[in-house]
């Protein structure tokens, strides 16, 4: 199939970017979107032009590296899938496809479609953990966890940290990302001890990074490749409220 790719090109953080259109010919509908970019990039290299920079790694939807806003949707059309899982058959012959980086103040563009998402790591540094030191922990079965609780914690823990929630949110809010981690650890007995300090510090860091405020319109849940529920944001809110009220 043949498509036109209108893609954001930006040399570095401090230089202005712009859209450039490329004609992509004879790409298989079974190819993934990223493979289409690979093919285009080889052509560009041969012409002596710089290839389009984009983050990617596992290409099976689990590492969270890839992330492109395609035709106005984080990770492109479709639900419950990362950019790397998107196939060209989702588009039609002759389509013009618009590809942009995640756009949010805390995610400055590094190059083309690559943004700096370390703000999310800094939120994790501020408390996204249980302070269990290596060794000196009880037997795994010493802590019983009801299956529904373990399952719900797993739902939250499946976050791949791609940032699609931020990209999709009209306010560039990171509440689903933070909510998923806070909720996972608030559900589990292991995480309860530090729950208060964790939520306080993580929310504080989130605000400092310049993410917007959640306005509960749930675009994040709709675009999350792991379909993480916004009920985890509710739990984050509750945990945060508890720190002040209780």
């Amino acid at each position: 199939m043949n498509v036109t790719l209108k893609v954001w090109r930006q040399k570095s953080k401090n230089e202005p970017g712009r859209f450039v259109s490329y004609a992509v010919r004879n790409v298989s509908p079974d190819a993934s979107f990223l493979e289409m970019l690979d093919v285009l990039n080889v052509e560009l290299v041969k012409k002596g032009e710089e290839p389009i920079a984009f983050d990617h790694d596992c290409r099976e939807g689990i590492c969270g590296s890839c992330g492109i806003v395609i035709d106005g949707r984080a990770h492109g059309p479709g639900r419950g899938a990362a950019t790397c899982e998107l196939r060209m058959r989702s588009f039609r012959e002759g389509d013009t496809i618009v590809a942009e980086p995640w756009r949010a103040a805390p995610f400055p563009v590094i190059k083309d479609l690559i943004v700096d998402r370390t703000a999310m790591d800094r939120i994790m540094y501020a408390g996204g953990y249980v302070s269990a030191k290596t060794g000196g922990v009880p037997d795994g079965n010493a802590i019983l966890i009801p299956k529904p609780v373990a399952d719900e914690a797993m739902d939250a823990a499946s976050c791949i940290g791609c940032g699609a929630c931020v990209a999709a949110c009209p306010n560039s809010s990171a509440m689903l990302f933070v909510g998923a981690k806070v909720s996972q650890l608030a559900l589990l007995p292991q995480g309860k001890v530090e729950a208060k300090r964790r939520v306080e510090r993580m929310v504080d860091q989130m605000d400092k990074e310049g993410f917007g405020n959640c306005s509960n319109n749930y675009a994040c849940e709709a675009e999350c490749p792991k379909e993480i529920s916004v009920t985890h944001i509710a739990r984050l809110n509750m945990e945060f409220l508890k720190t002040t009220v209780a």
Partner: protein
Amino acid sequence: MKLDSKIPSGPVEKKWDNHRFNLKLVNPANKRKYTIIVVGTGLAGASAAASFGELGYNVLAFSYHESPRRAHSIAAQGGINAPKNYANDGDSIYRLFYDTVKGGDYRAREGNVYRLAQVSNSIIDQCVAQGVPFARDYAGYLDNRSFGGAQVSRTFYARGQTGQQLLLGAYSALCRQIDLGTVKFFPRREMLDVVLVDGQARGIVARNLVNGEIESYDAHAVVLATGGYANVFYLSTNAKASNATAIWRAYKKGAAFANPCYTQIHPTCIPQGGDYQSKLTLMSESLRNDGRIWVPKQKGDKRKPEEIPENERDYYLERLYPSFGNLVPRDVASRRAKEMCDKGFGVGPTSLAVYLDFGAAIKRLGKHVIEEKYGNLFDMYHEITAEDPYKTPMRIYPAVHYTMGGLWVDYNLMSSIPGMYVLGEANFSDHGANRLGASALMQGLADGYFIIPYTIGDYLATAKFPAVTSENPEFKAAKTELDGMVKRLMSINGKKSVEEFHRELGKIMWDNVGMARTKETLTRALQEIPKLREEFWQNVKVVGSANDLNADLERAGRVADFIELGELLARDALHREESCGGHFRVEHQTEDGEAKRNDENFSYVAAWEYAGLEKAPILNKEPLSFEDVKPSQRSYK
């Protein structure tokens, strides 16, 4: 080179305990004076860096990713083994040890494997304490399943995302140390060389992938946890960025490279769709529990699978292995599939696939049962191929998946360079010639959480450390050399892209050094690879600038290393005149077509020593002895 494995003497159950007691300790107050560099922050690297930080060392951790959470450990699906015997089915440390040595086709060190089995129980406890949401039963206890043909239920899992959850656990421990300031994390840095001062590893030189700067970092010890080299085949199930540069450059600095020819091929991958294909996707081998594998009896049969009547289908695994049938081990299933395709029975557009048919299972158990068991895998298959596996058989083909070989390490996980340690898939130590399912995660975390934190202390407490900073001439020389290499790559300005070279290498490797190796194909590879290497350095085209993010330049360096590594891999495969585990030499098989070991002549670790680019590497042998598990022929009839 003299290889001393430092395996402690005494009975296998006592080795680790005795050894730990004999290790020298670093005074707690002195620990912060020691700097340890950890390269790679996957399961092994993150767990090691976090544990070092907890002990009080000053840690510098490096990753070419933007975050430790992106490491390829995250893609492991199935689970992690530990002989907790929670299922009360007779499991024990000794049994896991036995299974692993046997599964590795008697090419691993007994001492290392026993230790691995021993510490694996603590890994589960550690991960639970970190908040890893392992599957639970309704009573709230940890759930287990049997995996990869094991006869006991010792596999712990977190849905189909066990690797992800364990990595996030290690990442969270690392986050805590970064927050406390004991670990400093350097994202988007690619280690390009290890720096030796007076023969000791004293630091690294890394490229800042954002601004292109070559940076120097000094330390008292260097730990490499940079993963495997399966991408030497271009198409593999590894992540796109997975590469061998760190271990390869260390090899060229004097670290021995052990058993490079042991590569694992996974039988149930989605076959290549076309030339555009960038990587292969693995599907859990649990599919073989209910799926039946077949090819048409007639060569080149282009009918749709549904139109081929039952009596014209060849269920070849069931025919060849009446008792194990479709459940034969990975290496056997893979090899037979390739054989069928080579003979012209392959199916699908490329004729490089066999059918995995759930028709009978759906008829017998009902669609809902199959959906419940494999729904997510069926969806994934459907998404990628646009074929509905509930209606038409899946097409599968083997793909390279894991590399058992790696840098040689002693019992302390130290390479042949003093002060340089190697963990996880990057080392060679525990899996022998073949890795069992759910053992990769176990080894990575065992190395990082429970072995290296002890053994590194012994080195730091006993070695002499002359004052070194990154201003030392050795660092400057390394930097100058790398600047030169970058300049050279950028200035060739040839006609072929890095991608094309990588694909070409992959084709040579797969065709000649893949699942079935012969003297002839290996010799051919050893002729073709050096040619490719020469062509690469004359005709590669790298565009863009060296002073900003340049993925093309990053890959150029990695592919250059893969080409050299490919040659060593072929050389190792040629020298090993036997078949064992992930290394199958067509000349060495039993009458039934099974792998035939040659214990008399090849019961050793082949540790290759770099001798110069145009010179043949030197083969060093570390003999293997088996006191507890007596080698025998594997049979699956």
